[in-house]
């Protein structure tokens, strides 16, 4: 581009600055996506901000994995060699799950690292718990204080007083090993508000409690989930679903709400919540009647003979007869029945059913949270969904659905301490015999019920006060120092639960911590390495780092090293804990985090060889590439491994269900109607609230510090169909009062055709808050005032919405949104499913226009009502409580961090000769 004479003249006269630039003539090289790994430590890029001036920036690219959802997609951190800080994140092309691509949450990790309000130092409370006063302490002080409390608790005896309650684990068995070293049955998780329903249904079939669909090669993809926007494992699965679709696969989505995924579907079936098993059984019946089932798979892999023996012992034990009897058994599940239950046209049931029936061995199915976690009996959803895979013989096939554990790597740990000597009844109360797993969402109610207390309670990347139902009961428990002796929040960012802690200890975001990851994102099996990137950068530059907090921002640390140091300090030399933290390489010395991973990676099949080929060791390979593909494909493993069930087959017929007191559920059926079944919604103003859907750009309560994500989504209006809006006399933007069983909240209305009439929806991610004395997350938090109205009644009011503020980041002063949404979860009653133990998220609600003085964001909850309501649901489990042979739960089913075998029996019972099953001790971490 040439300048005009005038400009040249004016520049010469220096009236205006000289802006002559050397402009590119265009690049003729073919474009590529990423530099090759050989260039990663010496990568040069032109500075986008200085452009069009050419300023070269030098980077060291360090692979790690994302920590924003459970998928652990690969990230490549760009470490700026001038500043020594991370300047951005891109994808890691070597990660077999994410293949270099990410969702919005990946690149937004930089927001979380640069958050001006993040917790930089260990904090200890001043004043009363929950008052909001904090003082900075050193890591040494924090470790000594906490170690002393744990030591005192352990010395008092008991195995259930020190508890680690984890939200997002993100690791494989690390913390479980630590708890075992301490000798406590102290693992609690968030599974029961997330995947418990789906897990139970799958586990009944084949113990493997999660599916791994091979979308790429599918003919039909049937989702009772929204995997094109959320869920395990959103980005990797979305990639492969689209690959399948571009290759001609049909997408069927079952959801009462038009999710983004449903919007992409060939068939969207907006079923009434909880009716899904009726639909799947109608399809099962179609497959059976039309003879489209996979005879070989059914005959050889399914325990149909047990059913024949038990129920039809007078009949010939023949497969043909079994099928005939099965058709009779399922006679009630006609398309008309399904259509009536689901409240969708019968034509749609048949049309989509024909697509499913025609899928053969290439049927991919998935359910994660959604209906399985929403409804009383939600576990029937996954059980009947998997039935379709069993019928079509699409279990473990190319284009079918495999058990997730086939493609999940289980690491070998350097030392495995003995199993805990006791059973924690606060986590596994005896009446929930089949729960998957810990009854974490009724913890405050169990405590209130006098069923236990805790001396030391770690919450780790876990925010039950906000994420869980009935948060006011959590606040009540946390404020009670008799119930919780000491509460330590391990968290990368402030959250509503940390406000009620004694210690808030800052732990790293992705790129600031170590973890090993392996998830069933495809048919392959891989392992990935989450590493603190500045530590790896220091290593590349030849600098020694002892602890990760030396290189992280402020004093932000990581759990891996924290646990080693804490464990070491708990043990006064007499407790036998230190012996589980000894280096496998240096006799008699404390293990380092590097040694932990060195040991682990040296035992990954094929990795040492791959490393050697590159002239490095296993740890070196993972530091360089960040991920390793262990197996290309993991199909049909049952042919070698069989099925890990009592019968060794796919359990169509479950003796376990009969033995544990639920004989009506011996085979897949639709015997339990949802608590939000239309029969249970009697009043004219009663609706079903769908509160458990997620958004593609948020992750529970951990993305409120990511400004680019919050900018995209920050409010959660109530979705309502125009018909219902008309009935209630509300239009968009109007206020609506939503009454639950235990309280109410006021939200704005979003009128949309994209929701089933009679159902209203509200996203799960929004409505974050802080009180005036609290800090953090101001991009997304309303300021609220909490008031105790007495007699158990709690009130929360929004004092102000989101507001800009001045900080080192000019963007904080540019926040243009004011609406921070409403915290709906806190008004939800706990609804523990008696079988799966899952919280049933869907809420029966009454809708009305708010009364005088009831304003947007107002919330009221009655804790006494909430406790009474819990008792009602708890009673259902107690009524059916059965312990065959004294077993607390089926010995063959999973229990993360299982205690010694004798504790699987109720007092007075014990393992005997007839029971040959060994208790399931699944050493690996469950990715929730």
């Amino acid at each position, binding site marked *: 581009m040439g300048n005009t004479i005038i400009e040249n003249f004016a520049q010469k006269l220096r009236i205006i600055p000289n*802006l002559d630039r050397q402009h590119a*003539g*265009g*690049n003729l*090289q073919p*474009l*590529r996506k990423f530099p090759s790994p050989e260039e990663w430590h010496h990568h040069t890029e032109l*500075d*986008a901000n200085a452009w*069009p001036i050419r300023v070269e920036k030098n980077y060291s690219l360090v692979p790690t994995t994302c920590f924003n959802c459970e998928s652990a997609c690969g990230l490549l951190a760009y470490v700026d060699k001038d500043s020594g800080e991370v300047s951005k*994140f*891109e*994808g890691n092309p070597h990660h077999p799950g994410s293949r*270099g*691509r990410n*969702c*919005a949450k990946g*690149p937004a990790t930089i927001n979380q690292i640069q958050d001006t309000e993040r917790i930089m130092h260990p904090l200890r409370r001043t004043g009363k718990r929950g008052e909001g006063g904090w003082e900075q302490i050193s890591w040494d002080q924090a470790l000594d204080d906490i170690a002393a409390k744990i030591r005192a608790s352990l010395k008092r005896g008991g195995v259930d007083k020190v508890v680690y309650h984890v939200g997002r684990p993100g690791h494989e068995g690390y913390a479980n090993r630590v708890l075992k070293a301490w000798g406590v049955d102290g693992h609690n998780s968030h599974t029961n508000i997330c995947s418990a329903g789906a897990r139970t249904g799958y586990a009944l079939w084949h113990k493997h409690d999660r599916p791994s669909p091979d979308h790429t090669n599918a003919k039909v993809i049937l989702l009772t989930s929204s995997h*094109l*926007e959320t869920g395990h494992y959103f980005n990797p699965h*979305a*990639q492969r679903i*689209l690959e399948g679709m*571009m290759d001609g696969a049909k997408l069927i989505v079952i959801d009462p709400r*038009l999710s983004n995924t449903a919007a*992409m579907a060939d068939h969207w079936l*907006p079923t009434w919540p909880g009716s899904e098993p009726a639909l799947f059984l109608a399809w099962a019946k179609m497959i059976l009647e039309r003879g489209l089932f996979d005879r070989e798979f059914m005959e050889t892999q399914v325990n149909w003979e047990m059913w024949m023996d038990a129920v039809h012992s007078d009949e010939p034990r023949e497969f043909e007869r079994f099928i005939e009897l099965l058709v009779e058994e399922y006679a009630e599940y006609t398309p008309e029945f399904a259509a009536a239950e689901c409240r*969708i046209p019968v034509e749609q049931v048949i049309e989509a059913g024909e697509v499913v029936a025609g899928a053969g061995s290439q049927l991919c199915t998935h359910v994660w949270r959604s209906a399985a976690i929403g409804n009383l009996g939600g576990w029937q959803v996954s059980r009947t969904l998997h039935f379709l895979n069993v019928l079509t013989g699409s279990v473990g096939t190319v284009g079918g659905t495999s058990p997730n554990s086939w493609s999940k790597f289980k690491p070998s740990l350097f030392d495995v301490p003995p199993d805990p000597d006791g059973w924690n009844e606060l986590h596994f109360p005896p009446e929930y015999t089949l729960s998957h797993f810990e009854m974490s969402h009724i913890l405050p109610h169990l405590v209130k019920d006098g069923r236990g207390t805790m001396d030391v309670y770690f919450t780790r990347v876990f925010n039950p006060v906000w994420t869980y139902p009935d948060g006011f009961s959590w606040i009540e428990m946390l404020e009670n120092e008799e119930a919780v002796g000491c509460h330590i929040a391990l968290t990368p960012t402030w959250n509503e639960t940390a406000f009620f802690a004694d210690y808030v200890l800052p732990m790293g975001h992705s790129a600031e911590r170590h973890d090993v990851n392996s998830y069933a994102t495809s048919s392959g099996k891989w392992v990935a390495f989450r590493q603190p990137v500045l530590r790896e950068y220091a290593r590349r530059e030849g600098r020694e780092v002892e602890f990760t907090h030396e290189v992280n921002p402020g004093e932000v640390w990581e759990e891996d090293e924290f646990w080693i140091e804490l464990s070491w300090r708990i043990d006064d030399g007499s407790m036998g804990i230190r012996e589980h933290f000894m280096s496998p390489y240096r006799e008699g010395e404390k293990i380092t985090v590097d040694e932990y991973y060195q040991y682990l990676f040296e035992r990954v099949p094929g990795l040492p060889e791959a490393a050697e080929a590159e002239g490095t060791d296993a740890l070196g390979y993972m530091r360089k590439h960040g991920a390793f593909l262990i197996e290309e494909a993991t199909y049909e493993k049952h042919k070698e491994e069989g099925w890990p069930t009592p019968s060794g087959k796919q359990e169509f017929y479950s003796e376990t269900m009969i033995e544990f007191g639920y004989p009506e559920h011996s085979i897949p059926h639709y015997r339990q109607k949802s608590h939000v079944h239309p029969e249970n919604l009697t009043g004219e103003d009663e609706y079903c609230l769908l509160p458990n859907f997620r*958004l*593609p*750009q948020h992750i529970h309560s951990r993305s409120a510090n990511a400004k*680019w994500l919050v*900018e*995209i989504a*920050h*409010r*959660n*209006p109530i979705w309502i*169909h*125009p018909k219902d809006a008309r009935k209630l*006399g*509300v*239009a*968009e*933007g*109007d206020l609506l009062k939503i009454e639950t069983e235990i309280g109410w909240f006021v939200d704005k209305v*979003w*009128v949309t*055709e*994209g929701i089933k009439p009679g159902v209203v929806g509200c*996203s799960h991610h*929004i409505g974050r808050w802080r009180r005036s004395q609290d800090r953090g997350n101001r991009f997304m938090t309303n300021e609220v005032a909490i008031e105790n109205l007495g007699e158990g009644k709690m009130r929360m009011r929004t004092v102000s919405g989101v507001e*800009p503020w001045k900080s080192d980041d000019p*963007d904080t*002063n*540019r*926040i243009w*949104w*004011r*609406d921070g949404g409403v915290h709906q979860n806190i008004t939800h009653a706990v609804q523990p499913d008696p079988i799966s133990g899952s919280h049933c998220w869907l809420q029966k609600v009454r809708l009305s226009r708010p009364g005088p003085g009831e304003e947007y964001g107002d919330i009221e909850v009655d804790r006494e009502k909430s406790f009474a309501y819990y008792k009602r649901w708890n009673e259902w489990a107690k009524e059916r409580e059965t312990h065959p042979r004294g077993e607390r739960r089926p010995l063959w089913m999973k229990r993360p961090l299982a205690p010694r075998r004798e504790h699987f029996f109720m007092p007075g019972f014990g393992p005997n000769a007839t029971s040959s099953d060994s208790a399931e001790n699944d050493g690996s971490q469950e990715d929730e």
Partner: protein
Amino acid sequence: MTNFGFVIDNRKCIGCHACTVACKSEHDVPIGVNRTHVKYIEKGQYPDVTREFSVHRCNHCEDSPCTTICPTNALFTRDDGIVDFDDDRCIGCKSCMQACPYDALYIDPNKGTAAKCNYCAHRIEHSYEPACVIVCPVEAIVSGDLDDENSSISGYLREHETTVRKPESGARPNVYYVETSEDMLDPHATERTGEYLWTDQAAGVGHYAKYADSRMGAADTNSMIVQLALEKKARAANPRDRAIIRDVMERLDEQAERPKRSYDQPAKGVLWGWEVSAYIVTKAIAAGTYLVAMLAMFAGLLEMTDELWWTLVIGCTGFLGLTGILLVKDLDRPERFLYVMLRPNWNSWLVKGAYILGGFGGVLALSGAVLFLDLDRAFLEYLAIAGIPLATLTGVYTAWLFGQARGRAWSKDRLLAAKMLVEMLVLGGAVLLLLTSSKILIWAVAGATIIAVCRHAHHTVMKPQLETLH
């Protein structure tokens, strides 16, 4: 030749916003503005309803209106087809934002200069694909050389039917969409409402120019968004009012039939506010008064006394000066105002206009000199021979400038130049009457006329901007 473009495959786009965020990360794009964003619309009635997603951004047009109107060549087309920008040249006049049919530009609040998608030109230099392309989970964004038959993008275009946004703009855009709908591509097929599904808009996001920070949190009266939101609140304020409920029902019925926008980036609001309306009036007064006076003088209808000459020259100079001040004030980088004349893009009517204003200013200055030095008054008449066409152009050129703003309806108004000429003559006549008459009635009529013209000018400036708010 290389010619970079994008294909956006809407069969694949899942609306996840990864591209939006990756772009923000790559370019450190501030909150409130976007170089690329995803729009959502909902169509149909339950259960035959769907939601569509589409990525919107700079189209790297072959006949790019932004580079034509940009007065300082801050926006330019590279040899490889990328429409890039140099923020050191930009004066923050926002004309590019008015010219772009795709609402792709914004004013960077950190720099006060225009910015947009530049195809990650800094990455292209080192042969890397743009940040949005590599992040996309489903590979819905394809980049590459449209002129290279062997490139994957060319293959994609051969194998798929594609459409472009607003082909009628004549800009020859280089972003091609696979399987999309007019409802999605046309910003006016759906209503921009006060609030979206996941975002609020009530604060009213302006164009993020120099006043952005001070405006934060306060209602921006310039913003139509606020007005819409406030109106909505007012209407819903008393729910027991039957009439309101009836109105609500009617609106619901209306909405049911139409596609609904459920997510979009914040509106940039009105880019040219009262400063621009006022500048049209001040320059019309300066040029119009002079023009009418001179025409009347040559026609023998007006006798130019010395007193009248002095009043005319000083008055017109004053109003012309005011025009200049308003123009500079509207810039987001006012200290760079000289760039308009010293780094001229001769295609831009902003530049031509600046020289016209300068020329007319020169005539007035020389006329002032004649009077001050008490030279022969005939010189004033000679000067008027140059002054008449320059004054006419001063009043009218804005119509051609607005005509270059192809993102707005001004460019469709063929009579705009004529209207501006009439405005100028009416204003000139009215001012002259004020100056030459002492009758109250005439003063009142002239005053009313001036007010009417002012309102009309303001309307001319605002209406197309409000109508075409994306």
